[in-house]
């Protein structure tokens, strides 16, 4: 079968030595088994994330995203752009849509892009990795390579915000999206009913408003415990980092004993497809996902 090709936009947090560096690691086995080839967009730049607006305003924000779209259009023609990071995807898709709607903004964008020697026709479709899996591979396709069903794992599927809103996955509801639960079940684990599945972790405000964000994080983790989960799974790099990293801080301040592993769906798939703990990036956890490691080492 010919490999499916995509223009890949990793994003800053997925670089080597960055906060989500184990995410791209965990994608390797998954992509190999699903015949997906990711072609990194040469010299891609930051999307501005969710706080770029403060200093960046609108046009500079659109322009930095347009540069990535223009590079994909030029260097990897005909390929959809795919990002693993919801913030990267959201910013890129929002840019593509806004520039479609407003020809004057596209003209201004191209005036600025000229400074970097680029021009955008705006023909690239910006997609999220979970979209590609659901729409291009399908749940049956995701199930086919499973050699180690994740039996006995009870998982809280934490979709979070930006994979889900404002765009989300076509056909899913904003309030109770079901695709992540289905993905969990596809690899043989149990998806627990989890009412905090689309609650905000605080996003970038985890840095600027730690108390307020940690209240959100505590609710998210405690709900996973209350619903009998032994781990949380998320499609979002910032959700993963916030919800995993700050559990120790919450414990320190409030005397709680939170110790809930938080992994990416790609790590589940990697293990279910026969990948080792290292190939699944499980050595990148601050809170070890021991049950998942156990299955990987079997």
């Amino acid at each position, binding site marked *: 079968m010919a490999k499916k090709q995509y223009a890949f936009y990793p994003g800053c947090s997925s670089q080597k030595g960055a*906060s989500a560096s184990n995410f791209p690691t965990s994608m390797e086995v998954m992509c190999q088994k699903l015949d997906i080839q990711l072609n990194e967009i040469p010299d891609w730049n930051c999307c501005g*994330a969710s706080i770029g607006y403060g200093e960046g305003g609108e*046009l500079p924000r659109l322009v930095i995203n347009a540069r990535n779209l223009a590079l994909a259009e030029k260097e990897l023609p005909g390929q959809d752009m795919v990002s693993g990071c919801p913030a990267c995807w959201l910013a890129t898709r929002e840019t593509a849509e806004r520039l479609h709607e407003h020809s004057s903004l596209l003209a201004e964008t191209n005036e600025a892009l000229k400074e970097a020697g680029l021009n955008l026709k705006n023909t690239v479709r910006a997609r999220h990795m979970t979209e590609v899996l659901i729409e291009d591979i399908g749940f049956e396709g995701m199930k086919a390579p499973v050699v180690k069903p994740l039996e006995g794992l009870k998982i809280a599927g934490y979709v979070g915000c930006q994979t889900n809103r404002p765009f989300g996955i076509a056909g899913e509801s904003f309030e109770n999206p079901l695709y992540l639960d289905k993905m969990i079940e596809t690899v043989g684990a149990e998806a627990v009913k989890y009412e905090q599945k689309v609650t905000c972790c605080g996003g970038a405000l985890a840095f600027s408003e730690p108390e307020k964000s940690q209240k959100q994080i505590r609710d998210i983790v405690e709900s996973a415990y209350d619903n009998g989960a032994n781990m949380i799974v998320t499609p979002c790099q910032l959700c993963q980092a916030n919800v995993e990293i700050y559990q120790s801080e919450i414990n320190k301040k409030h005397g709680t004993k939170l110790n809930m592993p938080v992994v990416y769906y790609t790590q589940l798939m990697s293990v279910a497809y026969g990948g080792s703990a290292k190939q699944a990036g499980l050595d990148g956890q601050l809170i070890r996902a021991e049950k998942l490691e156990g299955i990987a080492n079997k």
Partner: protein
Amino acid sequence: MSDLNTQAVARYKNNFLKEVEERVEDGHWVKMCMQCGVCAGSCPLGPHWEHSPQKIFMMIRAGKREEVLSSDSMWMCTSCYNCIVRCPRKLPITHIMHGLANYAHRLDLAPKGQPTREIAKLFWDNLVKTGRVNELKFSLAMYFKDGFGQGVKNAMAMQGIGLGLVKAKRLNPMEIIGGHKCKDSSGIKKMVAKAREIEDRRRGLA
């Protein structure tokens, strides 16, 4: 008062709605708010806002310029997009909040020392420098934004987490002497400067 602010006051007199419509990202949507309050009830940081989006929109129409632009409310936005998807009239509320925050920041009416305002600037400056965010330098800049003593205290408090991340290869101490960057970082700087120049001209902030 900043010069930009004095000019804006002179130009728009008492018509703050018009000012927002012309100068704030997606500001032309403000008048469409029907005051239902769904946004106020949907915000994860709702308990901490001075004014909900619904109130902000009414205050804009009532001409409460100073109160709106100096409010800390816009800076409480986590970009969760709950308000956008729930608004019955499909107002792009998140974008309007971001637009108001940016405008208040540019006029220097936004609250001084507001932590999200400060980190938003640090973040943008960080990314424009090389084209990519350097997480280590960004974290250190955040810790040390209130001076050296406080910075050391902040860094010490986060030491355990930092070491954990280094051990998990999710934080690289070597990023301090360079780190990841775009090859065309100079093109990116010029491109961003140009975009700002165009937008400032269009918004009357040049």
